[in-house]
């Protein structure tokens, strides 16, 4: 079920009515939330709920064992079991065809006439999100960084809590499970703020992403023509706006819906297009994923504690796998590689150039960061490397006779929206909607 659908409106009204009816105990309200979460997921494709159940049961058992087991080898085995199941699901459902394609290409380059059978597997919605979430629990249990969940109900609800089930934020066990231990009820102000966030989120997703920007991006990235520079830029900027509004909008909805139930979820986006540099960008873009990758991939790979070469390798591997997490194609890997490359260059430059950031050079550096981020979006959005190459060449003004395929109004629409987006991010970069609203209310 999508937040931007009529069925979700009805679903949410029923859940809120049951949740606040005063008839049910806290345990029963949690059971209602859990059951509702399975409906929320299963109404799209009922059999795939089984995957959620398997993930939940395996990680619950692994977590329990890890909480009592002291034998190092056995602890490793339990961790391995959890990772194997979760990554196995991901590999099978998300990466099977990609792996098979590459395997076939590799085998055939040695002259074997191998023909793979594509299985046309359906991609379970949100699988990348909930597998990462449950894995974080087992890894934290293994590293003794978190307490085991008190009851199976609390754990199952942590894995399946519908507001953040399919598109994040990816929440850590200690931040969410503990909230389920005590009875939760949103205060009136929390409830209205949650409703406000849900509304803003829907506005970002439906109006700005889907209605105003997606068509321009689709037209440009779906075009076979060699494009005029203005068109290529308009398409890429439109996509940069679309993906932000779509994703941040959806996260904002999730945070708002949870808040209406009295549950606090972490921020996922903090005005990323005003980032100065790329480490700043990743502290602002899909924060719960980048901190997940930092804690469970970059640091275990060595982080910055084992010298420069190891650090840069860890950074690059993290970004490459981060790219692959977004989609099973080489274009996503290149997207990750570009970000890895940017991060490495930035670290090298930081050691050489010491710049004091003021509002004047700050906005220029933010603009430079945003422009460089746009080049990465080309690989993220393009389905073929040829498309990406043509668009990048046009963006670099190398296709002088490029075709104009967008109408004047489309271009004006995209450039003005993106100007507003960038300005808002710049103005808001050190604050939040909440503090701005508090300031204004106190002013009256």
């Amino acid at each position: 079920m999508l937040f931007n659908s009529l069925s979700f409106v009805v679903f949410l009204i029923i859940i809120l009515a049951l949740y606040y009816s005063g008839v049910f105990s806290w345990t029963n309200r949690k059971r209602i939330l859990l059951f509702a979460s399975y409906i929320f997921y299963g109404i799209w494709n009922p059999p795939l709920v089984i995957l959620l159940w398997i993930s939940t049961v395996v990680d619950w058992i692994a977590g329990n064992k890890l909480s009592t087991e002291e034998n190092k080898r056995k602890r490793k085995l339990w961790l391995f079991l959890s990772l194997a199941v979760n990554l196995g699901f991901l590999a099978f459902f998300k990466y099977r065809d990609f792996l098979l394609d590459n395997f076939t290409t590799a085998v055939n380059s040695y002259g074997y006439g191998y023909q793979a059978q594509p299985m046309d597997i359906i991609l379970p919605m949100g699988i990348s999100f909930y597998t990462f979430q449950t894995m974080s629990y087992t890894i934290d249990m293994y590293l003794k960084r978190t307490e085991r969940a008190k009851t199976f109900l609390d754990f199952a609800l942590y894995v399946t809590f519908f507001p953040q089930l399919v598109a994040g934020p990816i929440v850590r066990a200690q931040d969410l499970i503990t909230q389920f231990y005590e009875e939760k009820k949103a205060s009136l102000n929390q409830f209205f703020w949650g409703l406000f966030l849900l509304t803003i989120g829907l506005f970002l997703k439906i109006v700005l992403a889907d209605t105003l920007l997606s068509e321009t991006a689709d037209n440009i990235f779906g075009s076979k023509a060699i494009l005029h520079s203005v068109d290529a830029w308009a398409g890429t900027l439109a996509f940069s706006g679309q993906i932000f509004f779509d994703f941040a909008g959806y996260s904002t909805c999730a945070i708002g819906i949870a808040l209406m139930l009295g549950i606090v979820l972490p921020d996922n986006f903090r005005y990323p297009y005003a980032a100065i540099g790329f480490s700043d960008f990743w502290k602002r873009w899909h924060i719960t994923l980048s901190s997940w990758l930092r804690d469970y991939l970059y640091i275990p790979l060595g982080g910055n504690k084992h010298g420069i070469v190891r650090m840069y390798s860890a950074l690059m591997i993290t970004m490459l796998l981060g790219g692959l997490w977004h989609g099973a194609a080489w274009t996503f890997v290149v997207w990750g590689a570009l970000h890895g490359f940017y991060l490495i260059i930035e670290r090298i430059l930081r050691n050489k150039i010491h710049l004091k950031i003021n509002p004047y050079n700050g906005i220029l550096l933010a603009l430079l960061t945003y422009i460089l981020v746009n080049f990465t979006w080309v690989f993220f959005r393009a389905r073929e490397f040829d498309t990406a190459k043509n668009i990048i060449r046009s963006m670099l003004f190398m296709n002088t006779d490029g075709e104009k395929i967008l109408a004047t109004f489309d271009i004006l629409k995209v450039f003005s929206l993106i100007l507003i987006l960038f300005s808002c991010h710049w103005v808001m970069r050190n604050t939040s909607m909440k503090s701005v609203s508090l300031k204004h209310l106190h002013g009256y």
Partner: protein
Amino acid sequence: MNLKQSFIIALTISLTGILAWEAYWRAQGKIPDLDDDKNLWAIQRAKVETASKNDVILTGSSRVLFDIDLNEWEQETGIKPIQLANAGASPIPVFHDIVNNTDFKGTVVVGVTPGLFFSTTSPEANPWKRSQSRIDYYIDRTYAQRLNHWLSLPLQKNLVMVSTSEEGWTDDIDLKSLLNTIELGNRTGKPAFPPFYAFAYIDEDRNNPMSERTATDTAFAGTVQKAWKFFIESNKNAPDKEATTSFFLADAEKFMKRGGQLTLLRCPSSGWLKKGEDQFLPRAEFWDYLIDKTPAKAYHFEDYSQLKDLTCPEWSHLSAPDARFFTSELVKIMKADGIISNNKTN
């Protein structure tokens, strides 16, 4: 921070805005309407799964959609046909789906609009894709999608402001369509698409009578004619008679072998469009060629004195009263031929 007050103010502004928007479009003459989208089609397609030997399925392009009045048919025969025709699309994929994915053994009427029927079998070409995408949607649709559509029907029937279309008519009033009507010069250098306004109202069973305005206001009908001219003149693809015919005939043979009754139907067209069809897709080379190769019963409007002089206000479809007449006459002819029986109980 007191958000209750902010909430009440926001709610008041939103409701006022929504009501004003609704009132504005009603004042502009808009009435609530259903969208002939993939959901509406899929509901009809689902009926085929449980249809009996007595049932009738209509497939074809927009001519079958406009020209066969389902209520009239039901009145004449006691059976309401399942309307699976798709505007601007080839009926061949739909017939292929019925033959290969169901065990339906009743009557199938296939409308033959020469420019679309004989156009292509290429999955990527528009006439094919427009039909196939609906079949794919029917196969893949989720419970969530079905519920969303079911919930949207009462809104579509009662509110003008939710009116939108999969087709993308010039007079659609959703935000994206309204913005798309803004023109600031011609940057691309390509000929601009003429305005193409919706000219029918569809109901839940996909009965799709032409709007009265199209039938009575010649200037408005002229805008639709301009759109046909643009489509036809900008289409550079030659018809693919051999491929389309042989693809269709294979399914036709299979369907008739299992006891199904197949009927081909050529609906009326007029004016410039009819002349073009006569010149580029002449009856002898296309229609006659097709019906010679199949034992299926075939009806061409020109062969019947009561049908041959019907005039289409915008060259391609009948007005609502003429569609009722056409349907009742066609049913009479088909009954006389023993193609359909009268199941009326009264």
